[in-house]
């Protein structure tokens, strides 16, 4: 989990499809599993995200095993809403991997059934 005092995140390559969105203010609350990322490059752009371990326990270790993330890195998952009735989904195909010290991140694009684009989110721990 990102500490509550970490307020800036840099993704040098931007998000997938949004290359201009490289810097974010991170609004985290230790009492909530939800993190808000607010772009400081693109006005009005923001996301809600959650640490991967709260969505799919064990999948972060799988990313490490596959070489997509280092052991100490934080993995955030962007949340969206789909379906009727609407429900929250997690973009496991595009996780954001963040170095916890320098706060520099990168968005991965992952193939395979383990990493669905719209994984249902029942609840967040």
């Amino acid at each position, binding site marked *: 989990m990102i500490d509550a005092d970490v307020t800036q995140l840099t993704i040098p390559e931007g998000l997938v499809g*949004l290359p201009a969105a490289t810097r974010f203010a991170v609004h985290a609350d230790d009492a909530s599993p939800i993190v808000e990322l607010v772009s400081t490059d693109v006005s009005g752009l923001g996301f*809600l995200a959650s640490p991967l371990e709260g969505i799919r326990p064990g999948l972060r270790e799988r990313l490490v095993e596959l070489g997509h993330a280092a052991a100490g890195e934080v993995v955030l998952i962007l949340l*969206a809403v789909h379906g009727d009735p609407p429900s929250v989904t997690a*973009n496991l*195909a595009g996780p954001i991997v963040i170095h916890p010290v320098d706060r520099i991140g990168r968005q991965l*694009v992952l193939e395979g059934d383990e990493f669905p684009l719209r994984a249902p989110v029942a609840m*967040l721990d």
Partner: protein
Amino acid sequence: MLVLTRRTGQSLRIGDSIELQVVRIEGDRVVLGIIAPPTVRVLRGELLDAVSAEVREAADARARVRDLLKPGR
């Protein structure tokens, strides 16, 4: 766009470090082999498009996500 014709087993080079080879052709599917440095991200175009679209969906959904995850719902 540069358009080239290749046969099975033939390849093409992109720059100094990327090689694309036609492994086989199965009906309307072409099986490609790619040799590239690990730092080069090779992705299916439609997957990249789908993740990009989902990122934009997430950007539009902030308020609705917050509402759906409110305690007591």
